[in-house]
């Protein structure tokens, strides 16, 4: 557009310049003017071709993006299915994260519960500890944070020590199963972060727990 305006103003200048010249010079100017118009037509045709090619490319890109999106969706859908067998090493990160998040996956269970003033892992949670230990071994890029908690009765400080003992107990079990100790952080929140706020045995039981947290997935 700007080019065209320039061209027209050049023509206008030329026309103005011709006014006082003789005929010979005027016909020479006419030839030059014809050449200029010819050049302009060629240029416009070229611009149209480029624009058409650009539209074509954009259309192609859009189709490629759609294709990619469809492929990704299909892949994600496929990965939700539980995988048979033990080893899942070498799988992409998104796969492992899906396992941890999927509510139907056993790895989505993340709490071990305790009796009052107890820190031993009850038999019913052995499989859960095994499963997460195996996940950590198979997915070396993931680290685990274990948070020990207590109900809010009794001593704040004794509960802080008890929560640490609970978290440390889970960590020790996983290290025995082969997880490098450096990949597990065991911390205690004592009675400071209750899950249930009620003042009844059900609430207390829900608060006496170790939570397994994967910082990369759970934020």
């Amino acid at each position, binding site marked *: 557009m700007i080019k065209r305006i320039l061209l027209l103003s050049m023509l206008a200048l030329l026309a103005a310049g011709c006014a006082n010249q003789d005929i010979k010079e005027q016909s020479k100017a006419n030839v030059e003017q014809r050449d200029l118009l010819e050049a302009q037509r060629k240029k416009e045709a070229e611009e149209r071709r480029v624009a058409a090619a650009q539209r074509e490319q954009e259309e192609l890109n859009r189709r490629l993006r759609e294709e990619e999106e469809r492929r990704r969706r299909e892949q994600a859908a496929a990965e939700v299915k539980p995988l048979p067998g033990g080893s899942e090493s070498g799988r992409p990160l998104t796969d492992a994260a899906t396992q941890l998040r999927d509510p139907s996956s056993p790895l989505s269970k993340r709490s071990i519960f305790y009796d009052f003033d107890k820190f031993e892992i009850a038999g019913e949670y052995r499989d859960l500890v095994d499963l997460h230990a195996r996940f950590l071994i198979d997915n070396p890029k993931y680290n685990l944070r274990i948070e020990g908690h207590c109900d809010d009765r009794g001593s704040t400080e004794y509960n802080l020590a008890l929560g640490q003992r609970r978290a440390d107990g889970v960590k020790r079990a996983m290290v025995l199963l082969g997880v490098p100790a450096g990949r597990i952080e065991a911390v205690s*929140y*004592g009675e400071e972060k209750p899950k249930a706020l009620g*003042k009844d045995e059900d609430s207390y039981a829900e608060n006496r727990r170790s939570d397994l947290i994967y910082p990369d997935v759970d934020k």
Partner: protein
Amino acid sequence: MSEKPISWMRRSLIQGAGASAALALTPASRAALTIEIVGGSGREIPITVLPFVNQDRHADRVSEIVLADLLRSGLFREKSAGWMPRFPSEPEEVDWFNFGNRGVENLVMGIIAERPDGRVAVRFRLMDAFKKTQRIGFSYMVPASQLRGTAHRIADTIYEELTGEAGVFSTRICYVVRARDRFELHVADADGANADFIFAHPEPIVSPAWSPDGARIAYVSFERRKPMVFVHSVADASRRVLANFDGANSSPAWAPDGDRLSLTLSRDGVAQVYTMRADGSELARLTNSSGIDTEAHWSPDGRSLLFTSDRGGSPQIYRMSASGGGAERITFEGNYNVTPRWSPDGRSFCFIQRNSGRYNVAIQDVGSRNAQLLTDGRNDSSPTFSPNGRMILYASELNGRGILAAVSRDGRIKQRLSDSSGSVREPAWGPMLKPR
């Protein structure tokens, strides 16, 4: 400075005895202090505190603060002089005949005078109305902003003169308020006034402990997503990390000399008691057991520590030398005895005991090992002695909310303090400050 509505309640252990009266004892602008008196043992010392001359020119009315302090201690009862047409400030202005006829025994009078330099002179006398003589009297020259503190000092002086033990009205307390979206470490006067937080964070704060000089508070903060011990200067708000080892760092307690602290670390496995200097150097392990050892508390002479340990299968209280070595179990009743705190005279300690599902404050004599249950709440915790040993402040619950409560060492006097802005817990009573 925030003005949080805080209310103290007082009642005797003997419920239903005597008349009930609610007295609003502070100016309406403050609306902070309400004392409820239910019953009474009849052994309180009668006290008459006349309005100080000129006190209405100031927001803090000295005579009302003095009287509120004395009544809240549970050791006094008010003998009103409301029948007087005008109030004297000097002994020669007193109509002694009228006082004697109306049973006034201990009479407090005073006057406030403004000085050209902006300070105020506060003078008070405690008179024996029977003998018509002065028992004690002082004058103070203070900035007008310190009238409330001066009133507490006057109350301390009167308390000591009439009871023989030091008053604690000038001391401070700290506690943790669980507000809607954060935890706040508050420091307040012993009567709950002048409450303000010195530190706030969305992650929990627990176990504050005053240094013996009252200048610093050590506490546990979870601000770095794990329990670490910090030391916080009350005056200039500077703070530093004292302990950040692997695992949990908690339960700070100052040695009486203020040079060392004990604390609980899980760096070598299960929680054990360690000591270090206040600058963080010279870490030494004090206990060596396969169970949890925590909540160490230094005896007033600095020679031995009480602590909680579950080495015997259930949490019980043990005593050991401050230089380490063997520990002796000293609680045997029940299967949950925790949080030992020495009395300031070193002759007894208070702790939390579980009794048929309830957690209550108890006190045990060190020599005889006789123990007495002092409270009856559902979940009482974190007991802390007043520096004169008379009262034990502790965390309790009321309608599912955390409140502070206090009980006298003999169980007769009970008080309640609540902060309307949130749930209150983890109290620690500060030291007696010198000079008075």
